[in-house]
């Protein structure tokens, strides 16, 4: 790009390098990195879940054997961590939705906090319905 502006002598400028630990400098940066990292845990969870489904198609023995493997402490810890990351991912997703898709009622924009609260509410309601269906169908 070129322009007519007067430019400083490039050879005398000082260029600072961003340290590799930049994301530790601000809580907001760290939260961003955790949000990005959450996708890795969700991806691993989905791969495990798909394997679990394929085991199910291989018959009850294969499935029970796999389920036993998953009940080891390491896998339980993994699933707890993955659940926490999934919650973070979902919450930040709804937060982003309120920013990306502004909702208008008449001439006024609906406050973002309200959009966020409504989507979180809907999410909890849908989760509750699924949980109840699961418990009913199971029992």
């Amino acid at each position, binding site marked *: 790009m070129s322009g007519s502006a007067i430019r400083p002598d490039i050879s005398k400028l000082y*260029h600072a390098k961003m340290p590799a630990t930049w994301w530790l400098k601000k809580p*907001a940066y760290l939260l961003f990195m955790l949000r990005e990292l959450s996708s890795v845990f969700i991806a691993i969870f989905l791969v495990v879940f798909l394997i679990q489904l394929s085991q199910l198609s291989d018959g009850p023995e294969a499935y029970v054997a796999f389920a036993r493997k998953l009940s080891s402490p390491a896998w339980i810890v993994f699933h707890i961590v993955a659940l926490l990351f999934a919650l973070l991912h979902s919450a930040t997703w709804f937060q982003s939705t309120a920013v990306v898709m502004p909702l208008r009622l008449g001439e006024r924009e609906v406050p973002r906090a309200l959009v966020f609260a409504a989507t979180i509410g809907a999410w909890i309601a849908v989760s509750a319905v699924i949980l109840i269906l699961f418990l009913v169908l199971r029992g």
Partner: protein
Amino acid sequence: MGEGIEKESNMAEPNVTLQVTRYRPGKDSAPTMQSYSVPYHKDWVVLDALNHIKDQIDGTLSYRWSCRMGVCGSCGMMVNGEPKLTCAAFLRDYPAQEIRVEPLANFPIIRDLVIDMSDFLDKLKSVKSWLVRKVEKPLAEGEYRQTPVELEAFHQFTQCINCMLCYAACPVYGLEPEFLGPAAIALGYRYNMDSRDQGQDLRREVLGGHHGAWECTFVGECTEVCPKHVDPAAAIQRTKVNLAKDWFKSVLLPWGTR
């Protein structure tokens, strides 16, 4: 500068230490920090303290400032690591005895607290930040009129004062200086959303290009530090939505153009 108003007679005037970045081009190989002791006043901002240093202690200190009332966008610096307009950063809001004042992050340093903004100015221009008409209306037909609702669609994004705090807060820009960046994309969005404008097709190449909106990972700090509540993060994400819509239209509709 409001001196002496708060002075208490039985106490020595309290002081605060400013740690200020010094860089002399051609002489220093890297910036160093220099500390100055300045009087503390409840109604002083960091810029007042810098002006005190320049006037009373060390005339060689260089920094930019102009209006000292949050309008011109010249005095942006890192105050304790946060991008701030120093004319709006009150000493009383920094309870520690020491305040660190550094040039805006992510920009090359020219001297002391002065950064090189030519890259930013190029980027502002690259989004065609003016009303584009396919055919200009003859003057006799009058102005391009707009309803309040049409104005509301982009008004917030006209509030930018080009202070570059958002670039200093953006790690994507820090890591990838080619990135178009928050203020420039917000400005492109502002003109795209203007009912009088017809330049969306011309801006698409830059806004949707390799270093355009898609490079943004939505850290969101640009919006947090913006002194004018412009919300560049929202402008960038909505630009992505519009680009995606344009792309689908161009693929799905036979009359869509690319």
